[in-house]
């Protein structure tokens, strides 16, 4: 696997505002990388710097071994799918698709051949002579994809391409983009604010906050071992519960700051008396029989939401504890939750909230 896109200590300022801070990233040939983070975290800016649509203040961008830091977008051989699709409104679908080829003065035969190929891949048959305004959202999305694919670029850049579609179509297009990626063997960089999209589509997820890379790695690594409280809270849905706690004198348990000061074992050792933040994912709070009968919490119930497959139990505590159970929970005033010590995360209670080794 060769490195296709490499970012080395990218910094970008908008005036005094530091939009990207020391971002370094290696993207291998054929990899699907998701840039994810809350709005304003710099993920779109980062993508646009890769595209060349935004300049950078400092750092180096290398694409396929060539330093492109100061090259114009057109010289970088990347294709981009925009959030708004940015189709050419005055051109038919066919002319939208073939715009790049016509600029390069490719022959009529080459263009026709490519159009046939792309319409087959994207399912745009019968729409070639329509104008973008005559298409539905999903169809426009396909044209935008087709316009990128026809280029056969060094990499695809996606800027929240699904955010304008309705929920059902979004799930469908998610799978389709991923299938297309596998089939073309292309390198893709995908920006989204939706961590589910990032987790389901990408081989490699980069979590950004305030212009800084908080953590990057395989999706499940981020889920299993978040490096800090921000990543822990951002990855996973519903979000992880955080409960302030203190390590007990034996160093192997934590005493939670909840009514009754329940004590949980965490299967490791920390200094006695240390203040910590305990992280528990809603789906790791087991309502059924627990493997460790001693490790349990009994909490008052505020509300139960049932979606059929899942039940969400909101506990009447401060901070609020959320439970996600794959069973139908009956109405009850109290719920008993079992906890696997291996699924208990500890973080520092300060602002940075770094993960504490157990």
């Amino acid at each position, binding site marked *: 696997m060769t490195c296709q896109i490499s970012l080395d200590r990218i910094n970008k300022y908008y005036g005094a505002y530091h939009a990207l801070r020391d971002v370094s990233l290696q993207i291998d040939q054929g990899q699907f990388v998701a840039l994810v983070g809350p709005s304003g975290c710099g993920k779109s800016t980062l993508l646009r710097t890769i595209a060349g649509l935004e300049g950078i203040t400092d750092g180096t961008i290398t694409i396929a071994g060539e330093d492109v830091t100061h090259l114009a977008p*057109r010289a970088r051989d990347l294709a981009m799918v925009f959030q708004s699709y940015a189709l*050419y409104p005055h051109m038919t679908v066919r002319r939208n698709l073939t715009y790049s080829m016509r600029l390069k003065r490719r022959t009529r035969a080459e263009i026709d051949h490519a159009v046939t190929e792309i319409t087959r891949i994207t399912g745009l048959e019968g729409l070639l002579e329509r104008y973008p305004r005559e298409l539905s959202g999903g169809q426009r999305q396909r044209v935008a994809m087709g316009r990128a694919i026809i280029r056969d670029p060094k990499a695809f850049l996606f800027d929240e391409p699904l955010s304008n579609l309705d929920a059902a179509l979004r799930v469908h297009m998610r799978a389709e983009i991923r299938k297309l990626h596998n089939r073309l063997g292309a390198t893709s960089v995908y920006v989204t604010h939706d961590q589910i999209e990032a987790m389901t589509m990408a081989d490699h997820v980069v979590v950004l906050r305030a212009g800084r890379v908080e953590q990057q790695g395989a999706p499940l690594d981020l889920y299993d071992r978040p490096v800090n409280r921000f990543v822990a809270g951002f990855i996973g849905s519903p979000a992880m519960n955080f409960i302030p706690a203190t390590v007990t004198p034996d160093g192997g348990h934590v005493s939670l700051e909840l009514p009754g000061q329940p004590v949980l074992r965490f299967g490791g050792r920390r200094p006695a008396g240390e203040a910590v933040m305990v992280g528990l994912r809603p789906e790791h709070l087991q309502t059924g029989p627990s493997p460790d009968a001693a490790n349990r919490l009994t909490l008052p119930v505020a509300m139960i939401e049932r979606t059929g497959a899942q039940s969400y139990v909101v506990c009447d505590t401060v901070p609020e504890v959320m439970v996600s159970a794959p069973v139908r929970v009956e109405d009850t005033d109290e719920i008993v939750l079992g906890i696997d010590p291996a699924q208990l995360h500890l973080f520092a209670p300060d602002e940075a909230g770094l993960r504490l080794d157990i």
Partner: protein
Amino acid sequence: MLKFTNTFRDGIGFDTVLVVMALGYLVVFSAYPLAYNLLMSFQSVDLFTLTSFDRPFVGLDNYREVLSRPETAMIFWNTVKFVGLSVLAQLCVGFALALFFQLDFPAATWLRGLFLAGWIMPALVVGAVWSWVLAGDFGVLNHMLRQIGVIRENIFWLSDPDVALYSVIIANIWLGVPFNMILLSVGLAGIPKDVYEAASMDGAGRVQQFFTITLPMMRAQLGAVISLGVIFTLQQFDLFAALTQGGPSNASNVFQYWSWQLAFQNYEIGLGSVVSVLMIGFVIAVAFIYVRSTRYEQES
């Protein structure tokens, strides 16, 4: 009484009043003068019969008379030159300025506002200012051209038959540029930025973006600006009145000014009507193109 007010307010009464007011205005101030003008072009009209409809019909005599006059051909070509050159130059300069102000630089909006100065000034005032600028013996333009060594002798911009028409055209271009620039700026602002970004990702340079994105997406605005430009230029009267009065010996005369001269200076009212009827025909054709181009805009 209450019933009447209710009918008026909720029924078709109110609608009727609104329609009648609009139609009434059009009939009194547009349709009636147009029809009256058309009627006069077929009659023998003098100052004594101006206010009565009872005038001798002369058929197409007035038309024959106008078309057979020796100055007609010259004035026709002057009009074509005046409209063609004015509209072309206004469009090019206006478009260039609109593109320039599209760039993001300090005080861009403020400077663009300054360009409106020409637009809000009465054309007669603009004409007076230009007549100073173009004055043969003490004009600023001659002074400048002499200083930078382009000319040795003063050019008599307003009284030399070879240049008089072009002097009016220059003043008219100056007058029309702001309108073109503002309308085209609005059109340019309506093109989404990400379309340009998509084009640059697709490999289009600045020039290619202009010809493949900007120009085709401005089609409706360009159509509107050109047809309105033609109509406004055909209406341009004040500048001729202020600068050359169509002279010397019709060298800078155009149909709209000639029509006025015939009707109100020579009192050949029938002939003046003929000229304006011919112009109305042309303006209607241009207006038709304008309506077509704005309809396209609404559809997209």
